[in-house]
């Protein structure tokens, strides 16, 4: 097969290159977008179609120890949603936590070609890399959980900021991660060590000699900034899910000052109201802050009605939800590094809190002025499966559909939000931003999210349809690195995808600082901890900023 392709006559949405719906040829050669190709190139007529860069999911949970626990946990969820194989492609199981193969293929069927697993313990990195290797089609990377790392916190307590920074870099290199992830910073120790308690305030110190969540957040923002990672610390704030938590969220953003920070699934952190009582919406307060602070990016973590799986490194949160779901519950403590909780869950339209969460997510989308910094996500599978993205896109693009859905949700809840009055409809260009260009920029992936020469030829071609849910649900063509994966709505080839990771430089002597702690408190040998290059399969190191 010719390695070059020319796609003609399609309406192109390429916001990074300021192309907004122009009819334009797209040329592919050797996996990259090029200015032009020869006449022998394969030609695809995309008349009546919409061309976008492949989607980029900035925050999802698709691989690694906790994901696999959640998979094993729910045969009942897989059973009704099998994913058949073909002689070329592997079979799998669907549901809210699909098997690795189903995950890759299903992302492809939505036109997504890159996805970032958002929470991996360092000790689970090897496992995550194995799973990502078995996740086909998409390029992928992961964020390593360091916000409750006991050793790093000790360095902070002792004020050893420089070593802290090098240790972070060492950990990222040792795990092949893409950036750092903080989850409920400071909350693990009270959870594991103080009878399942938690921190409830960003300035709270569980013990007098401890450090506060704010100090941890601040240190990470500073260190990652100095290391020049392409993506800033990815922060899951304290107090997720609790009424009144928007104050914690605002304080977290203020802690960043004017340095970059990414706030994960911010919907779950935008609740007003009194602790212990029903929440109300603080979307306006949160959106206002984001609108005024270009250093902040976030993904929404939209809640979609139906089945979900709560899986989080925020173990106290999962424990709280266990009390609501009253079903099976998984807690998994990882030595010196993290906690984890898993609860099968279901969001129901008629339930006040669920309807409110749904509405707050949409409020945030519609109140945010800069689409480049408000990324589409459902915190898959916490707010719902990524398979809901097409419906979410329709909710954003079609206000009459939104009103219809709104009328079915708990009225007491939605009426406490601004949503009934918000008429804004996202344009295709804006959708291309929040699903592709925006996340690629936030991640610092210069070759993703656009269709300019030099970009990875990750391309999605949709039939231009009035019903955006149908349109975004079944792209006619999907190219991954120039390879046609889906052609005429059907899989035509398998593809492995690449691991995206970073490799910041660090002072090698930091190893000697980590080693004694490790030898005392870990249960594996230090020399067996770092992941070697054999786990990388096809990979790309994304350069740090200098």
């Amino acid at each position: 097969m010719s390695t070059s392709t020319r796609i003609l006559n399609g309406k192109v949405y390429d916001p990074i290159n300021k192309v907004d719906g122009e009819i334009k040829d797209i040329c592919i050669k050797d996996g990259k977008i090029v200015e032009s190709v020869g006449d022998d190139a394969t030609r695809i007529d995309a008349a009546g179609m919409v061309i976008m860069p492949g989607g980029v999911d900035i925050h999802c949970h698709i691989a690694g120890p906790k994901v696999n626990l959640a998979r094993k946990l729910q045969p009942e969820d897989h059973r009704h949603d099998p994913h058949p194989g073909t002689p070329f492609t592997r079979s799998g199981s669907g549901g809210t936590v699909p098997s690795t193969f189903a995950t890759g293929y299903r992302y492809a069927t939505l036109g997504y070609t890159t996805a970032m697993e958002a929470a991996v313990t360092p000790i689970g990195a090897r496992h995550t890399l194995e799973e990502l290797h078995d996740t086909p089609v998409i390029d992928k990377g992961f964020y390593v959980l360091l916000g409750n790392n006991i050793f790093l916190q000790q360095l902070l307590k002792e004020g050893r900021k420089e070593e802290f920074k090098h240790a972070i870099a060492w950990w990222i290199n040792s795990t092949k991660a893409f950036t750092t992830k903080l989850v409920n910073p400071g909350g693990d120790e009270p959870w594991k060590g103080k009878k399942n308690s938690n921190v409830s305030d960003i300035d709270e110190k569980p013990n007098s000699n401890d450090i506060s969540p704010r100090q941890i957040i601040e240190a990470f923002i500073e260190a990652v900034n100095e290391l020049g990672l392409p993506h800033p610390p990815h922060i899951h704030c304290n107090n997720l899910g609790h009424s009144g938590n928007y104050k914690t969220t605002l304080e977290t953003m203020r802690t960043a000052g004017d340095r970059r920070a990414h706030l994960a699934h911010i919907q779950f952190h935008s609740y007003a109201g009194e602790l212990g009582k029903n929440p109300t919406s603080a979307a306006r307060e949160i959106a206002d802050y984001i609108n005024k602070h270009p250093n902040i990016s976030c993904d929404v973590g939209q809640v979609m009605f139906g089945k979900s799986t709560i899986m989080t490194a925020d173990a106290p949160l999962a424990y709280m939800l266990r009390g609501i779901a009253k079903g099976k519950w998984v807690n998994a403590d990882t030595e010196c590094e993290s906690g984890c909780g898993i609860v099968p869950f279901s969001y129901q339209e008629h339930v006040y809190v669920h309807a409110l969460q749904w509405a707050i997510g949409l409020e945030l989308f519609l109140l945010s002025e800069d689409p480049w910094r408000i990324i589409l996500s459902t915190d898959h599978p916490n707010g719902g499966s990524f398979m809901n993205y097409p419906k979410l896109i329709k909710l954003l693009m079609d206000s009459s559909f939104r009103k219809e859905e709104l009328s079915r949700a708990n009225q007491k809840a939605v009426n406490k939000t601004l949503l009934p009055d918000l008429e804004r409809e996202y344009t295709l260009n804006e959708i291309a931003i929040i699903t592709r260009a925006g996340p690629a920029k936030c991640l610092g992936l210069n070759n993703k999210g656009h269709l300019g020469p030099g970009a990875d030829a990750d391309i999605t071609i949709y039939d231009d349809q009035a019903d955006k849910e149908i349109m975004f649900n079944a792209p006619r063509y999907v190219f991954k690195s120039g390879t046609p994966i889906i052609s005429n709505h059907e899989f035509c080839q398998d593809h492995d995808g690449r691991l995206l990771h970073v490799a910041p430089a660090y002072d090698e002597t930091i190893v000697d600082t980590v080693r004694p702690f490790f030898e005392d408190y870990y249960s594996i040998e230090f020399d067996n901890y770092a992941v070697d290059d054999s786990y990388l399969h096809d990979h790309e190191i994304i350069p740090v900023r200098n």
Partner: protein
Amino acid sequence: MSINLTLHTSPEVPLEAEVLCTDKLIGLTGSEIEKLPVEHGNRQVSVADFFTVKGSPDDSISIEGDLSKVKHLGAAMASGKLTISGNVGSHLGAGMTGGKILVEGDAGDWVAPEMQGGSVEIKGNAGHLVGSAYRGSPIGMSGGEILVHGDAKNEAGHAMRNGIIVIGGKSGDFAGVNMLAGSIFLLGETGIRIGAGMKRGTLVTMSKTSMLPTFSYSCRYQPAYLRMYLIYLQELGFSVSDEQLFGFYHRWCGDAIEMNRGEILAHDF
């Protein structure tokens, strides 16, 4: 006239035939039925490869032969009547919502798991997990009736939420485990740990049964409602003696670990 299928070739490996179900055959001719797909292990074959089809379709099917390697018969059935003259394999009537299945012989494991309505009657014995939930699922049978005249093995009515299960003969361990509600009648000898983890619902046992430490004894009495059920069981062809019908029952409440709202009624004989 109804449709009659006769097994003419014994399957070498399990034969999955969920297509053999009243609702799925209505409106088809005999030769159309013969062409329907069934799975012999990992090979898709057609009904005719294993069955001789006679008659024309209405809402009843009868199937003859040793079907003990044939699985998923009557799965998701909603109406009509399926009669099986012989033994049948596992997953009979899985998830059915209505209609009636009658098995003249024995049935395999998973008789009518997660069934929602209708009735399944087994003249012979049944295997494990009668009317149960599939693994991982919080809810098993949520309606209908399963009537086993012979024995049944472990976990009958696992996580059952509604309906009636009657085991005429011996029953296995953990009958009614994690029951949410509904009624299970164990007319013969029972296994151990019946009702473990039950939230609500009723287990009736006619034999001496050991109780878990989380069940508490309440009283000996004659529950009027039970008589109505037992009379109904008599009508269904189960043997219920006058001593059982008019006798006294010990009431045990449990499982304390769960809601403590279930009961085991043990015949005082």
